[in-house]
């Protein structure tokens, strides 16, 4: 496989959120004496990903697996605890707001809840105009107006409604407007964090179509965060499956759905309720997701995995390239213990 120069590259990214901040909070009484101890939530642990231009990388996983943290780290809304983020050859993590400005024009974000991401006191015209004016201060009023009308038409919202307020629109229309807002500055990279999860089925299809259209017409690259595997199969070119802050499987979408390898990916795929399957045959997982505060020493999935052995609880598996090109972090896959 020839991989073109990646547009976005993440190397060994880590993010910890400290739980005990003040001095007194760090004091713990253990075994008859006081000790200082800082607990942290290990939200993202050593993730490396690449996104090539024109790709749509989907990041899937269950709540608490660190999907949204990854999105926020890339968008520069959070600073990583360790690791590097490169965009188009430039390092972009831990930058000041000012130096991030030109980047924000290239990289835009769409959030889950369109009710929260649009300012209720701004008309649609104002909301859509703001980013354009900010990034292109030289534009005249007429040009601004044309630009806003153009993106509104592109997302299928009548430009004559531009003087209305967000509450006058339905959820689906609001999400289109949020997408329009991301498109106004002609970005090349879009980070979408669960953009259709809050919408009804028939509206989901409308918004997903719109995002696919924008991808084809504007040559966009996507990082798409979702928990919905059927959307991944439809939208993504590559998939990264996250569990407890680590990537357990990274692969082409078609390969992943045809031949999932990691035990977690298999369980996740089998758990999706199918429309036409009378006899669901789902792999039951033991227990629940452990908290990311006390991270297990070995494989993060070890406590729920049916194939775990002593090596899994002692040693963290590294992602290993498989013959079909996918990366899988699992001792059982490496040792070929799974399908025998």
């Amino acid at each position, binding site marked *: 496989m020839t991989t073109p120069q990646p547009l976005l590259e993440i190397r060994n990214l880590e993010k910890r959120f400290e739980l005990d901040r003040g001095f007194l909070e760090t004091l713990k009484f253990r075994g008859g004496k006081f000790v200082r101890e800082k607990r942290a939530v290990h939200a993202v642990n050593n993730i490396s990903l690449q996104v090539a231009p024109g790709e749509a990388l989907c990041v899937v996983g*269950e709540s608490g697996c660190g999907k949204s943290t990854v999105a926020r780290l890339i968008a520069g809304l959070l600073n990583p605890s360790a690791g590097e983020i490169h965009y188009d050859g430039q390092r972009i993590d831990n930058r000041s707001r000012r130096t991030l400005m030109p980047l924000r024009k290239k990289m835009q974000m769409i959030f889950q809840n369109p009710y929260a991401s649009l300012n209720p006191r701004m008309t649609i015209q104002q909301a859509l105009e703001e980013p354009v004016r900010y990034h292109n201060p030289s534009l005249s009023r007429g040009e601004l107006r044309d630009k806003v009308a153009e993106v509104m038409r592109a997302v299928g919202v009548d430009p004559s409604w531009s003087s209305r307020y967000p509450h006058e629109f339905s959820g689906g229309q609001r999400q289109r407007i949020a997408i329009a807002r991301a498109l106004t500055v002609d970005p090349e990279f879009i980070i979408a964090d669960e953009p259709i999860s809050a919408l009804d089925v*028939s509206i*989901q*299809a409308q918004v*997903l179509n719109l995002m696919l259209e924008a991808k084809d017409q504007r040559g966009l690259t996507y990082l798409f965060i979702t*928990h919905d595997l*059927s959307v991944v199969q439809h939208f993504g070119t590559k998939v990264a499956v996250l569990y407890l802050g680590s990537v357990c499987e990274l692969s082409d979408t078609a390969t992943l759905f045809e031949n999932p390898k990691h035990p977690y990916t298999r369980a996740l795929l089998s758990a999706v309720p199918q*429309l*036409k*399957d009378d006899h669901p045959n789902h792999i039951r997982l033991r227990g629940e997701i452990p908290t990311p505060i006390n991270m297990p020493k070995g494989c993060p999935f070890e406590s729920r995995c049916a194939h775990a052995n002593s090596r899994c609880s002692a040693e963290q598996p590294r992602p290993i390239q498989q013959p079909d090109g996918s990366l899988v972090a699992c001792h059982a896959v490496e040792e070929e213990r799974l399908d025998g």
Partner: protein
Amino acid sequence: MSLLSVRDLSVKFAMRDNTVTALNQISFDLAKGERLGIVGESGAGKSITGFALMNLLSRPGFIDSGKIMFLGDDIVQMPEAKMRNIRGNKMAMIFQDPMVTLNPVLTIGQQMVETLMAHRKLSKAEAEQIAIVKLREVYIPSPEDRLEQYPHELSGGMRQRIVIAIALLLDPQLIIADEPTTALDVTIQADIMELLLELCQSNKVGLILITHDLGVVSQMTERTLVMYAGRIIEAGRTREIINDPQHPYTQGLINALPQQTKPGQRLKQIPGSMPSLTAIPKGCPFSPRCEFVKDRCHTEAPETVQYANVEVACHEVNRLHTDKAEEIKA
């Protein structure tokens, strides 16, 4: 004899100057131990149906007309004291968010014992024994210890299991589950659904499953009602509805799922969105979004007719079928 029989049930909401219709003359039956799915998008009236069945509608909502016959008695006419005895005892409800259902300042044990002692003459120790048995039935590990714990100490999946255990405490004959797994992750959802299915089958409990997820309905239920703008627009055996839907809305809903289109291709979307209750279109409520719309769809509300093994409310149901037949020929 059927467990539940709903006839021409209408629910209205009193607004300042007028009333809006949230449920428009819906009728359906549920046999003992039968599992029924109610699907639709937000605003279709699914949850209102659930609340009406429990007689839990509060102002400004009220039951305008119709009958809800449950075990031979009409719930609509029933005095509140008698209804309290049915609620929890004969009929129980499971809601979407277990954190809202459970009382955060009471232990699991207190909440379970309270429910049991309110309905049955039991000592506290006896009630606790029953609680432990029920917790074991929903696969809660070490149930004795859980009785002492508060809801916040448990994970989301565990909480929803406890809600199910509480719903089953008094061996009800009907469980109404309103989006019971929407707030949970897929692996946990699969677990909870399997559990619910198993419990309903082994105890012969009737289930009304309210959900927006066609996949869940397909795996869980025997019959399905599809709702749109406060009406039942299609009803029948789940398999028939999933495999051969007749109403254009049901067809649209199934076709809009990403699984139904090749990856990367345009999804078949339904234009527009669900009308608000204050502005339900005249005639067929789906007419502004329907691709097969004819003149009379705008003026005349369609009657429910039996067609191809399902009941469907659509003027153009025949035309749909002839089109399909032509497609097959061509």
